[in-house]
């Protein structure tokens, strides 16, 4: 039975409820293969990407081969659940929305990672490195540039309600955090990991070359440092996972 469940999970199907699972208040933290990353999780449905091998000494796109949520085999840079829809940033840098009616193109020249909250998705777009931040609402197709004079922008995160955004930028010659409408925040750590940061109340959980850190968005101070953890995932379930080795664990 357990093998069957595992098979179903791998195929992106919902796992039958079990008493043990039902007792959990947080969704299970999955394990993945060493060359895979978890992109999102909603209930028992997961979107997992296998990282395609990269040539050495270059800067190719980090392309993922997706599995789960009906996306098996699709080559993409990122993919997330947004409400009852899925947004996929395909390997051609086109951001598409998938729902029961089909697929709709949302934006072009988009870069990973995506940040999803409050029914919106945040990302950066343009040409390397002078990306601008943008916000889209998949349900309506509305796309808005955010603080487009602040470039390059990277690794945006939406506030929990999806109304505000923070992103990293080197517009002033060094990496800093920027909150549109509020200004720069000087922090010793900024998000650089392929997995995006997560806005948690007053702090920003981010991953960089040194691990995972929690930065106070008011002061810029690091309030928690988790050097053993790597990529972060904010799931559609509302959980925040971080990677430790080949497994993810719930950190919030």
């Amino acid at each position, binding site marked *: 039975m357990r093998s069957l469940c595992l098979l179903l999970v791998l195929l992106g199907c919902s796992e039958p409820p079990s008493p043990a699972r039902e007792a959990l208040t947080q969704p299970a933290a999955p394990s993945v293969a060493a060359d895979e990353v978890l992109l999102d999780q909603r209930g028992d449905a997961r979107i997992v990407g296998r*990282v395609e091998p*990269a*040539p*050495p*000494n*270059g*800067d*190719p*796109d*980090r392309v993922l081969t997706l599995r789960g949520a009906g996306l098996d085999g699709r080559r993409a840079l990122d993919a997330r659940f947004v409400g009852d829809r899925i947004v996929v940033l395909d*390997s*051609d*840098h086109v951001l598409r929305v998938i729902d029961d009616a089909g697929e709709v193109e949302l934006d072009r020249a988009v*870069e*990973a*990672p995506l940040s999803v909250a409050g029914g919106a998705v945040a990302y*950066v777009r343009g*040409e*390397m*490195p*002078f*990306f601008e931040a943008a916000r889209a609402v998949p349900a309506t197709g509305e796309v808005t540039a955010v603080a487009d004079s602040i*470039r*390059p*922008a*990277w*690794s945006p995160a939406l506030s929990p309600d999806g109304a505000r955004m923070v992103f*990293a930028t*080197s517009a002033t*010659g*060094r*990496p800093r955090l920027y909150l549109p409408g509020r200004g720069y925040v000087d922090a010793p750590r*900024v*998000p*650089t*990991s*392929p997995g995006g940061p997560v806005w948690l109340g007053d702090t920003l959980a981010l991953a*960089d*070359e040194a691990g995972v850190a929690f930065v106070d968005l008011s002061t810029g101070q690091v309030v928690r440092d988790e050097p053993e953890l790597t990529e972060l995932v904010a799931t559609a379930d509302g959980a925040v996972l971080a990677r430790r080795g080949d497994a993810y664990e719930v950190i919030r």
Partner: protein
Amino acid sequence: MRAAAILALVLLAPQVADAQRTLLRRPYAESYRLNYGFDHNGGGGCSDYDCGGACYNGHTGSDFGTPFGTTVLAGADGRVTARNDGCANYGSYGNTCGGRCGNYVQLEHADGSRTIYCHMRSGSLRVSVGDRVSCGQPLGQSASSGSSTGPHLHLGWRPSASGASDDPFAGACGGPVSLWVEQRAYREAPSTSCRACTPSPEVCGGGDDDCDGAVDENATDEVCGGGDEDCDGATDEHARAELCNGADDDCDGTVDESDVCEVRLLHRAPAAYAAPTSTDVDGDGDADLCARGYSGIRCWLREGDGWPAVWDGPAWGDESGWDDVTNFATVRMADVDGDGLADVCARGNRGMYCARSNGEGFDDAALWLEALSDAEGWDAPGHYTTIRLADIDRDGDADLCARGPGGLDCWRSDGASFGERVQGPRWSDELGWGAAKHYGTIRMADLDGDGRADVCARAVAGWRCHLATDEGFGDAIEGPALTDDAGWGDRRYWSTLRLADFDADGRPDLCGRDAEELFCVRADGAGGFGERVPAAALADESGWGDESNYATVRAGDLDGDGADDLCVRANQGVRCYAYDGAAFRRIEGPAWSDDDGWNAARFHQTMRVVDSDGDRLADVCARAAAGWRCHPSTGDGFGAAVTLNEMTDEGGWDALRYWSTIQSASRTCTVGVERCDGVDDDCDGAIDEHPVDETCDGADEDCDGAIDEGDVCAMEAPDAGAPVGDGGVPPSAEPAGGLAPTCTCRVGAGSGPAGAPWLALVALLFRRRRRS
């Protein structure tokens, strides 16, 4: 993508015709190739400018294979419009820092176009927004910051601030017009020239005649100044420093005085007179190849049929002042810490620096001796060119020796610094040793086989050697009468002197060329020399007085017989001479002829005779315009060249400050009898192996730290045969480094005569190289 760029160009005013475009030079000095180009395929997959597959999908720039720390140069004159500094040096696949570009510099050029240099090294950026930069000006160093799978330089180009990125390379799938000053063969690095140029030899005139982007380079020691001096006898307003050019540059009425030609010769060939004892930096037994390039020391590691790996050593680059000949001419390699790995040292302005190999790379360079500084006068060629690394105390660590104003001194290595000073021969300036014809002949080798490097040089009255002892150096031992009076003050002769064991007796002999011939003089194993043996008729009369010939004398064991053979370049090619026990026989070497340009110092002076492939046969190697090449020895000839596409002219290696620093040497070992001394005396790769019972011979056979203990001499004396010198082992039959002569008794009458030939055979078998 290209279409988008063209559309942007059309829409933008003012339009810039291709002919008016700012052209780019290679954004670094070395010859690293294009790894991955701009993707011209609008859909999936990719197509580079030549319709090849050297790219990846959606790539909007050109990735050059620059190693970490390579100095990044401005592609053209311009102004800094953006920069970022603060991303980690090693990002990752998909890292977002700096908008994936990591640390970067963006320039705006005169035509409005922009170039961007990505993935640079944190803290290395040397320009700020608003700065004006000139073509070829250093911007910083390359690294792997941002989204990067390893060190490289991503160069992006766009026609304007708002134009889409495009490819500066022209090709069937790229643009119709190249944006490089000179685009070269497919994926090869473009030219280093900043503007279109027809190359001609560089002369002093304030111009970049040879189109290398530098003006009047090497003016003090290469081609600049050739015969265009203009002394009018009245004001001498055109007087300048004397150069070796056959002209009276300083208007003092004499030509090429003050040793200018001699010093130039020494600058060109430090590896000939201060040869590395080893360049095996990774301890695999192969001779690796090291040299100082624009950014510092770099080693190409020999393995199999090539040099597949590269190590970057200390950053003794041009930008930090190491393009000064008083520094770069002192690069030396030897094992200074006794770990069997070749290390690299050189004189900085404050003193002597070394960077030790750790087997996987070089440790940071450290100041090993705060002496030999500019402030102490060591920036004079009579001093800095005499720097040698040699083990004078038999502890396995190469020590530092050099001639200062008061004479030669050595500083013992303790594995981490050069410490205790040992006084050597007083070859002082005051006594005339400040002349190149004397200090330029300082040579070091273990003449008496005791494991200590001895020192020799040519005085006014002839060759002199001083044997190293426990306390320092002994008195002068007279050698061949290579006197000034006999003409040996001429650089055509003294510069050819080499200590090489031509007859395989384990003792370095003295070889050189006079006006008539190439010859060797046998060493007697005690610091003296005897019979002269002619090697080849290389007479001045037949043209051998030309520097491109006589300055190429090199030694190495071509045929694996344990003897050093001699090689020298004739106008038609290299000739080698091997001694067969009775006479020298000739072996034809690579056809590096004058017609092919090998009479240029930048090529023939890089000639090395080295076992590059680990087959125990020394090969003939040198730098050609297209890079490094080795012709493997077959024992009686040479095979086809094995090449390394590095150190090319195109990569800027035609400059003295680079090619003269090339180091390549097999690990050498002078065979002696293994003693309990912490040293691999018999060159078998093991130290103090096979301890045996103590015997009465002045040595510690059982490795217990005591010599001749346990009354072995008292016990054995009654059985001993005739004392040495009275029918015992003749000194000449003992192997190099043989039994200590202090003991007057022998084990038995038969053991000496029987043991000595066996040891000699061992010496021959294991001579020169030890392998791990």
